[in-house]
C-alpha cells in the first residue's frame, strides 16, 4: 500500500509539490495569524520553513537540491526551478506601472553596477582577511559574493582551483538565503516600501532568488520592480568580474 502511494507521488512529482506548498503556506499563514498576530507575514514564515526543510533534505541525502533530493519531494525542484520562477515573475509585471519603471531610470542602472562592485569588494576584503593573496582566488571569491552563479563562471574563466570555486558558491548561497530571510526584517528601516526603492534594492542585491523571496515576504506588489533590475545583475557580474574587476585586483596587488 505504501509502495503504491510512494510510486504515485513519484510519478506525479509536480502535482504533489502543489499539495506540499499548499500545506506549508496553510500552516504558515495559520501561525502568522494565531502566534504572531499578523506581525510577521505568513509567506515570510513559509520561506523560512522551506529553507529549514531544504537544510534537512541536505543532511538526509547529502545532495545539493535541498528537500527536492528526497524522491517523494522531487517535484519541489520543478515547481521551484528557474523556469516556473521566471515565468511567475514575468506575470507579476502585468499591472506594474511603466511610469514607476521610467522614473527610476539611470539610478536603477547605476544600482546594478554599484551592487556588483560593492559585493565584489566586500568578498575580496574578507578573502584577504582569511589569508588569500593570489588575484585569481580573490577575484573568484569576490565574484561569489555577488551571486553563486557569477562565482563559478568567473572561477572557470580564470582557472581557479575547485575548492575556491566551491567557497565562492557557498558565499553566494549565504547571500541569497540572507536576502530571503533578512529583507522583511529590515524593509521598514531602509525605506523599502515603494517601487523606486524596490528597483534600487533589486539592482543592489542582484540575487534573483533572494530578491524574489525577499519581496514576496515584504510586499508582493513590489516584485516586478525589484525583479526588473535584479535580472541584469548576474549578466553584469559575469561581464565585470573576470575582466575589469580581475585586472583591478591584479593591478592593486602588483
Amino acid at each position: 500500500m505504501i509502495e503504491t502511494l510512494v510510486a504515485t507521488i513519484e510519478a506525479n512529482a509536480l502535482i504533489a509539490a502543489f499539495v506540499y506548498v499548499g500545506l506549508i503556506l496553510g500552516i504558515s499563514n495559520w501561525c502568522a495569524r494565531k502566534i504572531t498576530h499578523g506581525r510577521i507575514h505568513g509567506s515570510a514564515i513559509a520561506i523560512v520553513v522551506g529553507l529549514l526543510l531544504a537544510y534537512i533534505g541536505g543532511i538526509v541525502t547529502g545532495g545539493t537540491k535541498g528537500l527536492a533530493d528526497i524522491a517523494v519531494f522531487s517535484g519541489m525542484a520543478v515547481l521551484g526551478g528557474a523556469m516556473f520562477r521566471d515565468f511567475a515573475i514575468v506575470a507579476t509585471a502585468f499591472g506594474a506601472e511603466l511610469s514607476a519603471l521610467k522614473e527610476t531610470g539611470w539610478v536603477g542602472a547605476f544600482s546594478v553596477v554599484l551592487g556588483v562592485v560593492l559585493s565584489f569588494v566586500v568578498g575580496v576584503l574578507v578573502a584577504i582577511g582569511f589569508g588569500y593573496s593570489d588575484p585569481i582566488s580573490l577575484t573568484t571569491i569576490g565574484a561569489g559574493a555577488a551571486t553563486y552563479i557569477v562565482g563559478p563562471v568567473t572561477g572557470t574563466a580564470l582557472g581557479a582551483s575547485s575548492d575556491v570555486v566551491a567557497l565562492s558558491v557557498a558565499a553566494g548561497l549565504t547571500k541569497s538565503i540572507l536576502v530571503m530571510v533578512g529583507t522583511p526584517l529590515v524593509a521598514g528601516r531602509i525605506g523599502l516600501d515603494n517601487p523606486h526603492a524596490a528597483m534600487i534594492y533589486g539592482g543592489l542585491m542582484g540575487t534573483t532568488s533572494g530578491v524574489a523571496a525577499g519581496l514576496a515576504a515584504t510586499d508582493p506588489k513590489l516584485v516586478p520592480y525589484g525583479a526588473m533590475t535584479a535580472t541584469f545583475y548576474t549578466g553584469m557580474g559575469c561581464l565585470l568580474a573576470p575582466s575589469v574587476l580581475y585586472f583591478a585586483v591584479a593591478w592593486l596587488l602588483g
Partner: protein
Amino acid sequence: MIVYGVALLAFCYLVGIYLGGLLGNLLGVDANVGGVGIAMLLLIGLAAWSPVKVQLEPITATGITFWSAMYIPIVIAMAAKQNVLGALSGGWMALLAGTLAVVASFLMIPVLARFGRHDHD
C-alpha cells in the same frame, strides 16, 4: 479564453529569455542578460497596445493573473530546494563574505533612493 492570456505570457517569456541569451552572447558572457526584464517590458507593452488590449477581456487576463498569484507558492518551493547545507558548510569565510555583502548592499539602499529622488525634484 483563459489560454490566450497564458499564451501571451508564455510568448513574452520566451521572446525575453531568447533576447537575453542573444545579449549575453553579444557581450561574450556565459549568462542570460536581462531576459526576464525584457519579457516583463514586452508584457507591459503588449497588454497596453490597443489591438491586444481589446482582446484582453477579464477572463483572458485571468490567464496572466493566475500565474502572478502563483508567484508566492513557487517561491516557497524555490526556498525548499536551496542548497542550505552547502551555504552553511562553506566555513566562516564564505558565511562572512556573503553576510557582509548583504549588509553593505542593504545600507546603500536608502543612500541611492534619496539620490534618485533628489535628482528628480
